[in-house]
């Protein structure tokens, strides 16, 4: 089945690599995948996002207009993508910076304090995206946690491999943030 996803936030928050990891992991799990970034000067100061499709079959367009899953990390992204989540879809939002969460009632939304967790507990804001990823995996089960770790190994240059444990940590922590299944 096709899952259409979007990851959105400020440039630098790691939303593009979050998408890449999911695409890579899904590919390793034998799925068809596509990953499509927002690009060009609109990124400047504004938001960055990427759309990821995972499917058992060939993927038609890499560009989606509605989403099964959205993860947003700042207010403009919430504003932009909340209306584009499909009815019954999933919206994950960072609730340590976004004060006022989504208002729609016809979707499943999850506030995740990814930034606070990363800064307070892990002392490294950079792994914020991995915290969010953990939560996302728990919520959506889109790919296996292990696949994401493999993906991380596969996409991170050798010289950063010492950061793998930290990332696993963040992933676990995010996973555990979601209490209900």
């Amino acid at each position, binding site marked *: 089945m096709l899952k259409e996803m979007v990851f959105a936030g400020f440039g630098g928050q790691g939303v593009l690599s979050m998408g890449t990891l999911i695409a890579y992991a899904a590919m390793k799990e034998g799925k068809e995948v596509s990953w499509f970034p927002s690009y060009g*000067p609109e990124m*400047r*100061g*504004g938001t960055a996002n990427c759309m990821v499709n995972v499917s058992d079959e060939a993927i038609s367009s890499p560009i989606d207009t509605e989403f099964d899953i959205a993860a947003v990390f700042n207010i403009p992204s919430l504003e932009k993508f909340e209306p584009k989540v499909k009815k019954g879809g999933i919206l994950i939002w960072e609730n340590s910076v976004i004060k006022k969460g989504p208002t729609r009632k016809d979707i499943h939304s999850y506030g995740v304090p990814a930034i606070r967790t990363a800064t307070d507990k892990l002392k490294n804001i950079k792994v914020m995206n991995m915290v969010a990823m953990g939560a996302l995996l728990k919520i959506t089960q889109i790919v296996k946690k292990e696949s994401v770790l493999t993906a991380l190994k596969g996409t991170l240059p050798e010289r950063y491999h010492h950061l793998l444990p930290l990332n696993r940590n963040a992933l676990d922590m995010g996973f555990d943030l979601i209490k209900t299944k």
Partner: protein
Amino acid sequence: MKKGYKLIYKRPQTLTKTRINYCPGCFHSTMHKLLMEVVEEMGIQEKTVGVCPVGCSVFAYNYMNVDMQEAAHGRAAAVATGIKRMLPDRYVFSYQGDGDLAAIGTAETLHACNRGENFTFVFINNGIYGMTGGQMAPTTLEGQKTTTSPYGRDPEKIGLPLKMAEIVSQFERVAYVERVSCNTPANTRKAKKALRNAFEYQGKKLGTTFIEVASNCPSGWKMTPEQSLKWLEERVFPYYPLKVFKKPDKKEV
């Protein structure tokens, strides 16, 4: 407004209300502000026509509250020539990046200067292609890393950075050339003065006026704004000295 205080500086009316969308600390913003301050102070908003070509400043017309034309990449000098020749009593400026003015637009730039077209170049030399994501520019410094010179600019392969202010100064009909920066308040004040001079000389039809800005690109350089100021001082100014290269004779002015 606090009682007993009077206003001594506020944002010029010649800037639109739109929030300026450049990266934090980028001198593009500063130069927009200075330029529009000069237009406001000279009272020439009604007589000013600007040209912005492709580059980060392609959206300049969203910010500057004057008539503007967006030009194709590299062709601002030709477009400004077209405008100025038709409207010789307007104040015309072209606002260009280094990729624009010194790479693809080399011919248009030099020929406009050689003809002495009576408009003002505002040349933002940030040593990089900002808009397209940080590729090497003709002004990228020796050894500087960019996405298309990932191992540092190698002069053996690609030559040394072009010094446009120096080059255009040689053309007889270029009236005024100065290289400025906005890294300190003092330099920023000088930059504004230079713009003002340029517009005044233009008003007197003295020939081409050319203000090069030793500018920054925190995003493209992958630096904080503060680091970018240091890079300017340590690396840029030694190669691109801030100075007046040419100015009109006293008697002309």
